[in-house]
C-alpha cells in the first residue's frame, strides 16, 4: 500500500541474540494448534510451527520434525502476537501523576521535532500487563496531555515522532524508530490551533511548505543567507521524511468532511497518509479506499460524542473493510494505554457487527505491521517469532494467552495484577499478606 522505503531498524534483539550463546541454532516446535497464519497459508485447523533462532522456519500440517523444545498447542488457538497501533507504552505509568508521564509537551513550537524515545521505560508495569493480554509489539506515539498542568493550554498541531517496541521488557526493546509523524486536524486540531479547524490546516500546510523550502535551500538557510523562517530547523528537519513520502503522517480526524480535507492535503503535498479516528470513515470509505489511505479506528466507540463524530457506529469497521480500506483497530479510548490489549475486545465487537473474522484478527496485528512498516503480524517462513497461544478465540472476552513468544523466546505472563490477586485470594485480618510473594 505504501511505496515508501521504510526505515526498519534491524531488530536489536536479533543482533544480540546471535551473540548470545543460549540462542545458537535453537529450534522450537509448536504442535497441533489451530493456526491463524494471517498470511498466504490462511487458517489451518491443525498445524505445527517450527521456529529457528527466533524466526518462523516452517508452518504446516504435521511437520514431522524434531526440535530442541516443543510446545503442545493441541486444542489451542495460535496467532501472531497482537500489535498496538497507537500507544504510549513506556511513556506513562499513572495518568494523573504528571511526574510519570512523558508523552506530551506544551510550548510554542509546532511540535514535529519532539522525540519521546529517550523517555521510553521498558520496565513500566504496563508492559508485562499488556503482554499478558497478548500484545507482543506496539507503536509508541506522543499525544495530548490529559492531566496536570498545561491541560487546556494551546498545544501543538504536530505531536511529534514515533517508535516501535517489542514487549519483552528488555532495555533494548525499541525495534524501529521514526515510523510516522503525528498531527491533529479536525476538531482537536482546531482547538489546538486557536479556534478553527481551518487554522489547523493552515498551520500544517505552512509547516510543510517551509519544510520544502528548507530542503531546497538548506545550505543558505544554515549560513544565515535566507529569510527568517517561522519554524525551527529541528521541526523542519523532522518533517523532511514526511514531505519526501518516506514517513507517513498519522492524522487524527473523525468528521467525514475533515477526512476528505486531509486526503486533499495529502495529495497536494504528496504525503503518505494514515487516518486515525475516522468515526465517520464509513461515510467516505470509497474515497479512503481510492486514495489508498489506511485507517486506525476505535471500533467499540459508537458514541456521537462530538459534532465531529455524529456518524459513529459499531459497523464502521465492517463498512470500511468492505470498501477495501486497510484497517487497524486500536484499544478503546476509555481503556487508554494501560489496557492496550483490549483492542482484541474491540475487534471482537467489530466482528460481531459484520467485520469478517480474519479481517478482525488482521486489524490488531498484520495490518498494523503493514501500515507502519514493522515486522510481525504473520506466521510464515522468515517471519519474526512473535506468537500467542490462546485458550480459545483471541477476540473472545473469555480468552487469554496461555503462552507467548517474542522473537521466539517464551515470555512471562505474570503481572502486578496477578501478583496482587495471589496475595489477596483470601483477604483476612492479620499481617501475613505482606509475607506472601
Amino acid at each position: 500500500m505504501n511505496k515508501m522505503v521504510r526505515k526498519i531498524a534491524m531488530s536489536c534483539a536479533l543482533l544480540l541474540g546471535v551473540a548470545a550463546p543460549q540462542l545458537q541454532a535453537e529450534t522450537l516446535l509448536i504442535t497441533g494448534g489451530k493456526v491463524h497464519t494471517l498470511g498466504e497459508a490462511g487458517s489451518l485447523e491443525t498445524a505445527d510451527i517450527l521456529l529457528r533462532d527466533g524466526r518462523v522456519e516452517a508452518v504446516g500440517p504435521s511437520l514431522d520434525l524434531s526440535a530442541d523444545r516443543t510446545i503442545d498447542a493441541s486444542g489451542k488457538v495460535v496467532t501472531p502476537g497482537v500489535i498496538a497501533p497507537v500507544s504510549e507504552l513506556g511513556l506513562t505509568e499513572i495518568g494523573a501523576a504528571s511526574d510519570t508521564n512523558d508523552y506530551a509537551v506544551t510550548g510554542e513550537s509546532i511540535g514535529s521535532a519532539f522525540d519521546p524515545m529517550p523517555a521510553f521505560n521498558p520496565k513500566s508495569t504496563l508492559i508485562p500487563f499488556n503482554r499478558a493480554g497478548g500484545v507482543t509489539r506496539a507503536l509508541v506515539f506522543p499525544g495530548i496531555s490529559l492531566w496536570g498542568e498545561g491541560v487546556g493550554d494551546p498545544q501543538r498541531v504536530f505531536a511529534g515522532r514515533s517508535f516501535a517496541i517489542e514487549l519483552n521488557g528488555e532495555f533494548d526493546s525499541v525495534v524501529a524508530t521514526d515510523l510516522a509523524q503525528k498531527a491533529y486536524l479536525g476538531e482537536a486540531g482546531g482547538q489546538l490551533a486557536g479556534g478553527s479547524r481551518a487554522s489547523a490546516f493552515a498551520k500544517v500546510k505552512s509547516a510543510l511548505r517551509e519544510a520544502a523550502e528548507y530542503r531546497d535551500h538548506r545550505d543558505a538557510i544554515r549560513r544565515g543567507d535566507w529569510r527568517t523562517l517561522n519554524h525551527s530547523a529541528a521541526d523542519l528537519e523532522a518533517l523532511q521524511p514526511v514531505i519526501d513520502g518516506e514517513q507517513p503522517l498519522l492524522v487524527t480526524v473523525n468528521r467525514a468532511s475533515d477526512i476528505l480535507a486531509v486526503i486533499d492535503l495529502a495529495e497536494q503535498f504528496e504525503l503518505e497518509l494514515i487516518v486515525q479516528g475516522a468515526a465517520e470513515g464509513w461515510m467516505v470509505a470509497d474515497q479512503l479506499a481510492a486514495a489508498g489511505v489506511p485507517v486506525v479506528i476505535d471500533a467499540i466507540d459508537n458514541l456521537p460524542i462530538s459534532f465531529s463524530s455524529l456518524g459513529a457506529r459499531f459497523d464502521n469497521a465492517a463498512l470500511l473493510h468492505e470498501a477495501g480500506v486497510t484497517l487497524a483497530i486500536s484499544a478503546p479510548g476509555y481503556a487508554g494505554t494501560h489496557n492496550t490489549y483490549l483492542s482484541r475486545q474491540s475487534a471482537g465487537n467489530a466482528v460481531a457487527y459484520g467485520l469478517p473474522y480474519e479481517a478482525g484478527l488482521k486489524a490488531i496485528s498484520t495490518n498494523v505491521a503493514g501500515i507502519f512498516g514493522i515486522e510481525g503480524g504473520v506466521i510464515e517462513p522468515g517471519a519474526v517469532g512473535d506468537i500467542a497461544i490462546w485458550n480459545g478465540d483471541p477476540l473472545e472476552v473469555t480468552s487469554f494467552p496461555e503462552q507467548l513468544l517474542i522473537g521466539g523466546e517464551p515470555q512471562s505472563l505474570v503481572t502486578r495484577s496477578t501478583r496482587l490477586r495471589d496475595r489477596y485470594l483470601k483477604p483476612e485480618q492479620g499481617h501475613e499478606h505482606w509475607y506472601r510473594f
Partner: protein
Amino acid sequence: MKFHSRCLVAALSAALLLSGCGEEKTSEGQKESVTFASQDAFPSTYSVTQSRPVVIRGATLLTGTDEKMDSADLLLTDGVITGIGEGLEAPGDALEIDGSGKWVTPGIIDVHSHLGDYPAPAIESSQDGNEMTSPNTAEVWAEHSVWTQDPQFALALAGGVTTLQILPGSANLFGGRGVTLKNVPARRVQDMKFPGAPYGLKMACGENPKRVYGSKGTAPSTRMGNVAGYRKAWIAAANYKKKWDDYGKNGGDKPERNLELETLAGVLDGEILVHNHCYRGEEMAIMMDIAREFDFQVSTFHHAVEAYKVADLLAENNVCAAVWADWWGFKHEAYDMTQANLAILDQAEACAMIHSDSAVGIQHLNEEVAKAMTAGRRAGFDIPPEHAVGWMTLNPAKALGVAEKTGSLEKGKMADVVVWSGNPFSVYSKAEKVFIDGELMYDRDDPTRQPRTDFELGILDAEGERL
C-alpha cells in the same frame, strides 16, 4: 398501569438495613414526621403503555438467582413476570417469541452512570454532572441535570440496560443525590424515575475532592481533610435530624428546611442510600467506621479498585462493591488493580457487581462481566454463568434498594427482560429484544422498535435519522 411515587416500605433488601420512609401524618399541625428524602418533590410519572402478553419459548434462562434453566419458557403479563418453567400456557393474544438458541437474562442494571448529565455530544454547555463549587453539595440532585434526549440512553438500551442510577460526579465529598431511572424514552426525567426507588447520595473519597479543592487553596487538600469534612457534615446532619424529630414529637416552631442537611438526614433516617466513590482499601475501612460513628449504612463503594483487599470487611459490614473488570492506572489510587477483584469479593461473600461509569462501557456490561468471570476462574474459583449474571442484575438491584421489584426472573417481579442472540458472556452475542415492564422497548430485528432521541432526527441528513 401508572405508578405513583410513594414511599418504599420494607420493600428493600434487608442487607441494606433500611428503615421505612417517614410517615407523613399531618394532623392539626401538631405532630409531623418529616420525610427527609422528599419523595414527593419531583414525583415519578413513569408509566407503561401496556402491550400484549409475551411468552418466550424454549430459551436458556439465567434467572439471576444462581439458576440456569435450559429450554424453558418465560411469561410476561401486565408488566410482570407471571410464569417461568417448561410448557407454560399463554393467553391467546400473547406475543410468541421463539427462544431456541437464545439466552434470556434479567434486564441489566448499572449502578453507576452519568447519562443525561454528561450527554453526547459532550459540548461544554451540557456538562452538568459535577457541581464543583463546594466540597459539600448534598443539596443538588442529579435528576435536575438529566437531558432525556441524550442519545446514549438509547445506545445503553440496545446493550440490554433497563435500569440505571444517574449519579453526580466525584469532585465533592458530598456530590449530591443520585436518581434511579428506568431506561425508557421520555420527555421529562420524571417519566423515567423508577417508581419507589430510594434516592442515592453520592460521596467521594480520595484524590478527586482533595485535588479539586486543594488546588483552589481551600479544604480539603488531604485525605485527612476529606475525613474531617465528612464528619463535620454528619454532625450537622445529626443535629438537623434531631431538630425535626423533636418537632415531630413535641410540635412547636417548625424548623427551617435546609436542602443540604435534608439529604444527609435522609441517609441517617435510612431512606437515602450512600453510594461512595472510593478506590483504596484503607479509605473504605475509614468510611465504614464513619458510618458506624454516625449510625448510617453505606450501600456501595463505587470503582473500588482495591475492594478485594478488604473483601472480608465489606462482607461483615453488608457493604456492596461496584467495580470495573480491568480499568486501572489513570490515578495512583487506581494503580493496584487486579482483574480478579470482582471474583475475590464474590468469594468472600461480599455483595459485588460490575458498573460502567462510561457511556461505552454501559453498552457492554455483559462483556465486562465475562472478563471478570474469566479472571475469577483463572484465580481458581468456580464461577458458572448463572452466578456471574447476578453481577449485572440482582446485585446492582440490591445496591439500589430495588431488589424486591427487579433484578431477577422471578414471578411477580417487573418484566425487565433481555433476550440475547446467544450466551451473553460472548463478545459475539447481542441483546436482540429488551423488555421493560413487559413492553418491548428495543428490537434488533425491527427498526421501528429502536428508539431514536429528538437529537438524532435530521442531524446527519435532514430527511433521515442519525444512523
